[in-house]
C-alpha cells in the first residue's frame, strides 16, 4: 500500500524539474568542455604551432623511415673516393667494389643518380653535375674559394656560397666544399638489415642459405648466417634483443618484487587482520607516500644511488608499485569472506593454517589478476623509465632519436616495442585465463 499518494500535478512538476536538470546538464557539460578546450587552445599556444612545426623535419623523418641513402664521398685533400651506406664506416663498400650506379676510373668517378642526372668527380677537385632539364653545372676550387659556372640568381634548390655548393634534386643531393665532395643517393628499404658487406651471405636469398651449397667453407650455412645476422654491426640485432630483454626484466622484477613485498604488509594494513590501529594507519600512509612519490621521482633518486642500468629501473617500478599493491591488496583482504576463515578455524586450525586455507585461496585470483595487469602496463613504463635512467630499449630509442638521422632504426625500435608490449599483453591475458579461471 503506497504511503504517500502523488497527485498528477505533483508528478508532472517533479518530472518537469528532472527534465529541466537533464537539459541543463546536456547543454552545460558540452559548454564547460568547450570553454575549457578554448582556454587550452590559447594556453598551449596552438595558433603558434604552425610556425614552430618543422615540416622539413617531418619530411626527413617520413622519408628516412622507409629509405636509406648511400654516400659517395671524395676526400679532396688526398683524392680518395669511398662509397658507404648512410655514410657510416660500418656500412662502407669493400675496396674495389662499387654499386652499379657508380663507375670509378682512376681519378674520375661517374655517378648515375637516375633520371638522367649524372654527377662526375673530375681530377683536380673539379665536379660536373649534368641535369637534363637544367644544364650542366661545373664547379672547382680557385685558391680557397668555390667557383662555378652558375649565374646569379641561382634557383632555390641550389645553395651557393664562397665555401660551399649544395644541390638538392628529387634524385639525391650533391655537396661540394674544399675538403670533400659528397653525393647522397636515396633508395627505398632498410639496407644491410640482414647482412653487412663483410658477410659472405649478403645478396643470397633465404632458399640459397638454407638449401643451397655451403657458401662459407668454414661453417655451415645456417650457423654462419645466423652469426652474421645476429652480430650485424649496422643494426646490432643482438644488442637490440638484449635491450628488449632488459626492459622486460625491469618490469618483471619490479612488478613481482613489489607483489612479494606488499603481500605481508597488506595483511598488517587490513582492518580484519590487524587490530592495531596506529600500525594500520602508519602502513596506509606509507603506501600513499610510495605511490605519491611518482615513478619519475623514484627514478631520479635511485639513479643517483645505483647508477644507470636495469636494476635502477626495476627498483623504481618496485617502489611505486609497492604503494599501489599495498593499497589494493589490503582492500582486497578487507573484503574477504569471514565464513571460510571461521570454517577453517572450527577444525582447530592454527593461525597460519587459517590464513593459508581460509584467506589465500580467496584472494589469490584477485591479486594475481591485478599483478598481471600491472606487469603488462609496467612493460610500457619500463621503456619510459629506461629512457631516463639509461637501460633497455628506451635508451636505444632515445639515443637513436637524439642523432636525428637514424629514423629507420627508430622505426625498427618502435615496431619492436609495440610488438613486445602486445606480446606481454597476450601473455598476461593467457596467464590470467590459465591461472584464475583454470581453463
Amino acid at each position, binding site marked *: 500500500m503506497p504511503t504517500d499518494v502523488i497527485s498528477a500535478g505533483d508528478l508532472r512538476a517533479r518530472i518537469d524539474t528532472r527534465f529541466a536538470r537533464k537539459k541543463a546538464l546536456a547543454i552545460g557539460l558540452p559548454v564547460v568542455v568547450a570553454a575549457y578546450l578554448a582556454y587550452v587552445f590559447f594556453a598551449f599556444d596552438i595558433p603558434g604551432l604552425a610556425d614552430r612545426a618543422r615540416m622539413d623535419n617531418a619530411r626527413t623523418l617520413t622519408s628516412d623511415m622507409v629509405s636509406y641513402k648511400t654516400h659517395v664521398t671524395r676526400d679532396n685533400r688526398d683524392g680518395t673516393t669511398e662509397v658507404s651506406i648512410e655514410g657510416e664506416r660500418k656500412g662502407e663498400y669493400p675496396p674495389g667494389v662499387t654499386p652499379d650506379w657508380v663507375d670509378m676510373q682512376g681519378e674520375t668517378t661517374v655517378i648515375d643518380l637516375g633520371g638522367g642526372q649524372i654527377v662526375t668527380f673530375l681530377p683536380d677537385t673539379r665536379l660536373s653535375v649534368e641535369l637534363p632539364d637544367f644544364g650542366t653545372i661545373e664547379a672547382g676550387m680557385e685558391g680557397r674559394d668555390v667557383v662555378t659556372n652558375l649565374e646569379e640568381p641561382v634557383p632555390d634548390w641550389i645553395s651557393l656560397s664562397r665555401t660551399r655548393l649544395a644541390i638538392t634534386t628529387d634524385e639525391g643531393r650533391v655537396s661540394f666544399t674544399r675538403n670533400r665532395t659528397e653525393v647522397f643517393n636515396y633508395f627505398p628499404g632498410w639496407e644491410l638489415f640482414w647482412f653487412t658487406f663483410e658477410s659472405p651471405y649478403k645478396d643470397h636469398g633465404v632458399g640459397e642459405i638454407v638449401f643451397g651449397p655451403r657458401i662459407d667453407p668454414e661453417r655451415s650455412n645456417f650457423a654462419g648466417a645466423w652469426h652474421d645476422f645476429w652480430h650485424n654491426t649496422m643494426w646490432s640485432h643482438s644488442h637490440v634483443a638484449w635491450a628488449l630483454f632488459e626492459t622486460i626484466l625491469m618490469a618483471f622484477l619490479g612488478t613481482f618484487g613489489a607483489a612479494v613485498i606488499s603481500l605481508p604488509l597488506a595483511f598488517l594494513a587490513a582492518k580484519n587482520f590487524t587490530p592495531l590501529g596506529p600500525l594500520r594507519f602508519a602502513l596506509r600512509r606509507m603506501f600513499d607516500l610510495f605511490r605519491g612519490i611518482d615513478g619519475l621521482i623514484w627514478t631520479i633518486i635511485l639513479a643517483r644511488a645505483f647508477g644507470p642500468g636495469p636494476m635502477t629501473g626495476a627498483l623504481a617500478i618496485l617502489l611505486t608499485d609497492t604503494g599501489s599493491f599495498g593499497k589494493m591488496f589490503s582492500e582486497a583482504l578487507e573484503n574477504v569472506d569471514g565464513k571460510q576463515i571461521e570454517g577453517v578455524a572450527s577444525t582447530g586450525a592454527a593461525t597460519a593454517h587459517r590464513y593459508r586455507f581460509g584467506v589465500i585461496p580467496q584472494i589469490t585470483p584477485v591479486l594475481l589478476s591485478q599483478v598481471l595487469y600491472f606487469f603488462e602496463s609496467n612493460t610500457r613504463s619500463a621503456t619510459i623509465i629506461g629512457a631516463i635512467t639509461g637501460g633497455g630499449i628506451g635508451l636505444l*630509442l632515445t639515443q637513436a632519436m637524439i642523432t*636525428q638521422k637514424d629514423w629507420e632504426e627508430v622505426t625498427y625500435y618502435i615496431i619492436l*616495442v609495440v610488438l613486445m608490449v602486445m606480446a606481454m599483453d597476450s601473455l598476461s591475458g593467457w596467464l590470467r585465463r590459465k591461472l584464475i579461471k583454470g581453463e
Partner: protein
Amino acid sequence: MSFVETDFRANYVALVARKRLYGGIMLAIFALLMISGFTLADSRNAGGFWDGILNVFDFPAAVWEDTAPKLDQLPGHLVTYFPSLVETLNIAAVATLVGTIFGTLLSLLSTRGIARWPRLTGLFRRVMDIMRAVPEIVVALVLIFVLGGGPVPAMIAIAFHTSGALGKLFSEVNENADLKPVEGLASVGARWGQRMWLGIIPQVSPNYFSYALLRFEINIRASAILGFVGAGGLGYELKNAMSWGQGKYDEAAAIFILLFLTIVFFDQISSHIRNRLTGEGAH
C-alpha cells in the same frame, strides 16, 4: 563400500599431493627467476645493488642540505613553479578528454551487437591494441622532433595511448549494456549515432566516468614524466632544476613537493568520487 571409500581417499590424497607439487614447482621456478633476474640486473647496472643501497639517502640528503638553509624561499619557489604544474595538469586533462572521446567511439565501433559496421569490429579491436601498446614516450619524442618542445606533443602522445586503453575498458562496459533501449530507438527509426547517444551512453556513462577519472590520475604521472624528456610542464622544470646540480637543489625540492602533493590530492579525490559512483549502485 569401504573399498570405494579408501579408493576415494587415496585419490583425494594423490590429487592434493600433485597440486602441492605443482604449486611447489611453480613457486620454486618463480623464486629462481626472481633471484637470477635480480643478479643479472645487478651485474648489468652501472653501480651494484649492495653499494647503492647505502647511498640511497645521499641524494635526498643533498636536496635537504640545499633546501634547509633556504626554507624561507620555498613558498616563493612553489609559486614560481605553479604555472608549470597547471600546464602538466592541463596536458593530462586534455589528453584524458580527447582520449575519452576517441575511446568511446572506438569502443562503440568494436563491441559486437552495437557496432556500426559489424564486420569491422576485429579491425577496430586491433587498432585499439596497437594504440594501447605504443608507449607515450615514443609518440612524444617523434612529435617533439616535428613540432618542437612544448605541451602539444605530450598531449597528443598521452591522448593516443589513452584512446586505446580506455577504448578497451569501455568496450567491456558496453558488452554488459542492455540492448533493449537500442532496439526501441531502432524501431522508431533512429540513426546509429542517435541510438548510441540516447540508448547506450546514458547506461554506461557512470562507468565511463569512473574509468576516465582513474585514467586522469595515471595521465598526470605520465605528463610529468614526458616533461622530463622535453615536453613542457613540471617535468621539464625538474630536469632544468636537476641540471644545475648540487647547491641549487632547493628548486628541485619545491618541484618534488608540488608533484607529490598534486598526485596525492588527485589520487584521494578521484578514489573518493569513484567510491561514491560505485557506492550509489550505478551498476
